[in-house]
Structures are given as C-alpha cells and as structure tokens.
C-alpha cells in the first residue's frame, strides 16, 4: 500500500534554518491531510492539517502547502529548533470512509545546534 509516500527517510538541518518535509499521494479521494510528530515509544502528536480545498495552512513556525495537481504536500518548519528532532508522519484521510487515515513511512528530522 503506497498511497502515501514520504521518500526521504531522514533529513538533517542546522538550527535556525528551514526544514522541508515532503509527502506524495496517489489517491484523489483523500480530502484532508495531517502532519504528526512522533518520538520513540510515544504516540503520534498532531501538528497541523490542511483541507484538500486549500493550498496553504500556517500555524506559528509550521506551514503546510498542498499542490493538488501534483498530489504533493510539504511541511515547512521555520526556524528549526533542536526540539523539533523527531519522526514526522504525513497522513491522508479518505473521504467518507469512517475517518480512516493512511500514513506515510515517516521522515526522521534531526536539527543540529
């Protein structure tokens, strides 16, 4: 099942710089997209989301961009902080399927001082 893909397993960024995490999807029936952050041995923590009818949503240091024609979304973190180091998951919700979320494989972000 490769409907949601995060092609970069890891990303290293210097503190203060921008982190850009990418996610691609294949199914046009996704109507909502979410980003979660996860530390080892913990549950995913919700970060930010975007409806399929929008192309940008911003919350503090986090901005999500959605390009529907390319079936691509990205999470920008500016400025990056060492505390942002974690695994980031992209998730997509199926329209009218009981809220089912399909997750990507995750990208491990490491922010170095």
């Amino acid at each position, binding site marked *: *099942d490769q409907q949601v893909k995060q092609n970069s397993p890891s990303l290293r960024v210097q503190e203060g710089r921008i982190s850009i995490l990418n996610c691609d999807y294949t199914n046009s029936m996704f109507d*909502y997209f*979410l980003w*979660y952050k996860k530390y080892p*041995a*913990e*549950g*995913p*923590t*919700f970060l930010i*989301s975007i*409806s399929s009818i929008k192309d940008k949503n911003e919350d503090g240091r986090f901005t999500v961009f959605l390009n529907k024609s390319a079936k691509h979304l990205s999470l920008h973190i500016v400025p990056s902080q060492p505390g942002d180091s974690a695994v980031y*998951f992209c*998730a997509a*919700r199926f329209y009218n*399927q*009981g*809220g*089912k*979320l*399909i*997750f*990507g*494989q*995750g990208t491990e972000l490491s922010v170095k001082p």
Partner: protein
Amino acid sequence: EPEVTQTPSHQVTQMGQEVILRCVPISNHLYFYWYRQILGQKVEFLVSFYNNEISEKSEIFDDQFSVERPDGSNFTLKIRSTKLEDSAMYFCASSDGLANQETQYFGPGTRLLVL
C-alpha cells in the same frame, strides 16, 4: 490539556491467548479509532467506531478482533487468539466529530509482544 490514555503500556502474552487493550478517549469526543505499527513499518488503520458501531475496518481487522465501548469512558480492542504477527504497537485515537472531526488525537500506545 485533555489527552487520550491507554493501558497497559506494555503487554506480553503467549500465542493463542486473548488480550484486551484499553483506551480512554478525550471526554467529549465521539469518534474512536485503533491503529497499529509493526516495528519498522507504517502506522496502519485497524478500525473506526462511532455511535456504538464500527464505521470502517481494514482487512487486518478480521474475526479475531473486536472493539467495544463498555461504558461512557473506555474503548477497548480485544484480540481473541493472538498470533506472533500481532506483535506491534497499538494506538488508540479519538476525534470530536465537530469542526475538528478530521483531527485525530493519539494515545501513547500499548506495546504488545506475542511469544
């Protein structure tokens, strides 16, 4: 801040035994979910539950699995006869079913090990 809680945090069981994983969703939430993550793999959807019935289930959620909301606060996942391949981290999630229905909040997980 309200959060989803899960018990136990770890469970070790013998193959063929029944296990019940427990979750307390956020109190005003109406939609409940179970997901699992096998080590090194993606987080996978198992089941969603609303108004005391299953809304959607995945292929993984076969007859060995069941869910229940036995009272106003708990949401449980039962595996009747565990298999080795059921070893995974199991996450409960809930959403409020209102403007933020799309946002599912996850618990810390139960690590299940089947021997």
